[in-house]
């Protein structure tokens, strides 16, 4: 990801769990607001219930920070309400979620190694 300096990406880390869920939902595909809420709820197995107000507050921040952008994509007008807006990740957004995933994976790996060593010592 050459377009952004590592520094620019690191500035966003760590990503809050709720934000991570939103970014993840958008990494899968472009979605409108309610679809994001549904996806987050599904993926967290009902543990995270994102409501309309908080969702848009986060979306605003993500839009302002350039991690998310509005998509021009629209389903056929007869299938969809014209007021609905769709969102997708920007390249920066993709970079941030990748970096965060890597960071968490590192943490997990570290923790597993620690566990293994402890088991070996025991």
């Amino acid at each position, binding site marked *: 990801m050459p377009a952004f300096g590592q520094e620019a990406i690191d500035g966003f880390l760590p990503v809050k769990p709720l934000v991570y869920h939103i970014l993840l939902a958008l990494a899968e595909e472009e979605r409108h*607001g309610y679809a994001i809420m549904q996806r987050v709820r599904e993926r967290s197995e009902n543990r995270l219930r994102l409501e*309309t*107000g908080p969702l848009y507050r986060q979306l605003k921040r993500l839009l302002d920070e350039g991690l998310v952008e509005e998509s021009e994509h629209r389903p056929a007008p007869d299938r969809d309400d014209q007021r609905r807006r769709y969102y997708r990740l920007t390249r920066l957004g993709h970079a941030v979620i990748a970096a965060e995933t890597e960071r968490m994976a590192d943490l997990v790996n570290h923790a597993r190694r620690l566990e293994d060593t402890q088991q070996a010592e025991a």
Partner: protein
Amino acid sequence: MNSTSGPIYRWLLLAYPRSFRERFGDTMCETFGDALHAARQEGLAAVGRVWISAAVHAVRFGAGERFAEIKRRASVAKDASMTLRSLSADIRYGIRMLMKHRGLTLNAVAALALGIGLTTTMFSIVYGAVFRGLPFERPDELVHFERENLETGRQMAVTYHDYADWRAQQTSFVDLGAFVEAVIHVKSPRGHAERNDGVFISHASFGLMGARPLIGRLFSAEDDRPGAPNTIVLSHAIWQRQFGSDSAIVGRTLQIHGEGTTVIGIMARGFGFPIAEQFWLPLRLDHNRVERGGGRLDVFGRLKPGVTFEQAVAEFEGIAKRLELEYPVNAGVRATLKTFRDEYVGQDFMNTLRIMFIVAVLVLVVACANVANLLFARTSRRATEIAVRTAIGASRARIIRQLLTETFLIALLGAVAGLALANLAVDWFQSSMIEGGGLPLPHGPVALFWWDFRIDAVPLAFVLILTLTSTLVAGLVPAIKTSGADVSGILKDNSRGSSGSRVGRMAKALIISELAVTTGVLVAAGLTVKSVLQTMTVGRDLSTDQVMTARIGLPDRRMGLHDANYPDLNARFRFWDQLVHRLADQPGVLSATVTTNLPVTGSGSARIAVEGMNESEEDSPSVRRVVVSANFFETFGVGMIQGRSFNERDQVGSEPVTIVNQSFADRFFPGTSPLFRRIKIRDAEGQDPWLTVVGVAPDLWMDGPRNRDPEGFYIPFTQSLMGNPQARLGFWGLTFMNIAVRVRGDLVDAPSLFRTTVSSIDGDVPVSTVRPMREVIGQRLGRYRVYSIFFMACGGAALLLALIGLYGVLAFSVSSRTAEIGIRMALGSGTSRVVRSVVTQAARHIVVGLGIGTLLALWLSRGLNQILYQVEPWDAGVFAGVVALLVMTSLIACIVPARRAARIDPADAVRYD
């Protein structure tokens, strides 16, 4: 999102900064709608959760966003930023407090939700019915005319000649228009004749109202000319429903009353002048062909700019006097002028709405009193915390603001829940009042075309005002009282967090006001409940289960219909005679009858003479008169009290007979048998024969559900054309008749039974209003039943709130006396004495509250007369019952906390904090 949740959510969004709202408002509404839709599948709890979290987030994040925005605008004065910062802190602190005291929050929110919900419902209804405005240009200039007979005080329609003279002589109005309400028979594409509401209307009328067609044109002077080609204008609704919004319909020909009629225009959407019309036909008046005094018109006009209503009234007084001098027919006749709204909405309905609105506001007052009490109890417990904050420098204003913020949050949650409640209630109003026939309107229980009951901008603004008012009413007194407490006193003596005397005054005011208001509301509820119980007796003597009815009208020239097939009474008579016989022969029909009036729906009247009693001309009492065919009483399962029922042998050639009802017999033949006595209809020509009484029937509510003048008699249909048919049948006799059949088994097939039988005689006669007899009676009683549901809801809410409120007040004031009670107990006072002392102390306030409440109830109940069925507004039983119920409620609210206090170990009580 449905029509109401959208505006409510938009209203919540106002909490967010404008920039945020503009950017995300629409899409948030959309998303919220989806979430709400999904929640509805999960049930009521999920819907509640979605709304509550939306309200909480609106306040929390909305304030947060605003704060963030302020921070971004560095140029904003630091003071403002400080205020906002502290406001935002207040809100966050408030939310924490509400979450901490969940029981209290829930209680207070529920109370305000009830109060705000009921008040909003009534406001939306009043606003929709009265203030949303008529869909005319400058509606206040529209004036409706009737005529009044000064001698009898009776209101009469306007005659053709008076209309023509008024129009020629008046100068106050731009012009006068006229119309006649009618039933329009339209042949549907399927070939059935269908009945629709419509009017014959003068061409100038549309111009006066400012009505515009959507497609085509409205009437011109040419359409009004007698003999012009037939033309018709369709309403937007009927155009959509029956003609599939096909604009090519304009110019086509429909079969109206069996004649080809050209559609010339479609009216603009939502226009149904004067009531809720679907068709307009030209009014072809030719007053030269009618005698003076003939014809019945509704007349209205538009005041010229600058002319007042009073000036117009004065001018018409003069015109009427001139006509009186010229024509004997006009002796004692005056014009009565009313604004259009007064004529169609009417004072009865306005009064009923006003009382309902007041009752709803009273429930809100009780709710606010409850919340005030809950908050006061809590802030008193927080007196120490507040004193500490004051001691370290918080200003009194700052503390009041903190407390008010908390109250506002409660009120806001209450408003959201209340709106949801109001939404349901307004829907209920729409369906049960309007469709259930509950409207006491001057022109019958039909919803007026401009009515629109919705919770939109204005009702929402009203809710906002209610929310703020409730905040102030419920929050200000506790906030001021607590914040003004003696700081050092409280800090020195922790155990006296609340001083007895302050609680006392507050408690006194609450007990008195809650009881007074609850008495008023409960009496209103009690009266309407009693009235509903009374209505259950209506129709008691009738067996209605298997009876289906239909109202059928034959074309009649007097209504402007082409009546070629029914030129005279004999032709009409033959139609009904044939119909009732054919119906009786159908399989599954046990008995069939034709009548001018069904039981409980009212009837015509006639002046009568009783042989050997009152044969002088002056003394001729007016009684109820109904024409029925032979099987009338059998069809309704009514047995004769004495004598016989009508039968096929009662014919034109045989002895003229009648059946009288029980009240008639009691009044005119007290103590003797009425059988074979004779009565006579007094008609102008004196040609009606003496009628021999052959039977006595039960009363059967011949004067309608109220049945104020129950005495009446029946004439056999087979003899209806004897003597003076006009006097026997009334004006519309043999034009509109009612059919009733008693069937074996199900009523489901009855409508098609009526239709096929009628069209086997004449395919152009439409059958309308096919209803089970049970429903016919139910609709007559609708106005009494539907209102009682509203008043019972208010009464129940008020009683529940009062019970919680009184218990809360008394429990709190007793608990603040726990130490004192402990000392008394330690000194040997028994439980009963302690309880007695608590009860005696409260008793005085209870009596004052009930006294004020009784006065309030008397004032309220006077306005209920219109919707009470055989219950006087000052019914002693209801008043006594309500007072007894409230005395009991208050005693429970006193005794329970008192006993609890008395059970505490004195040693603990003295240490009680």
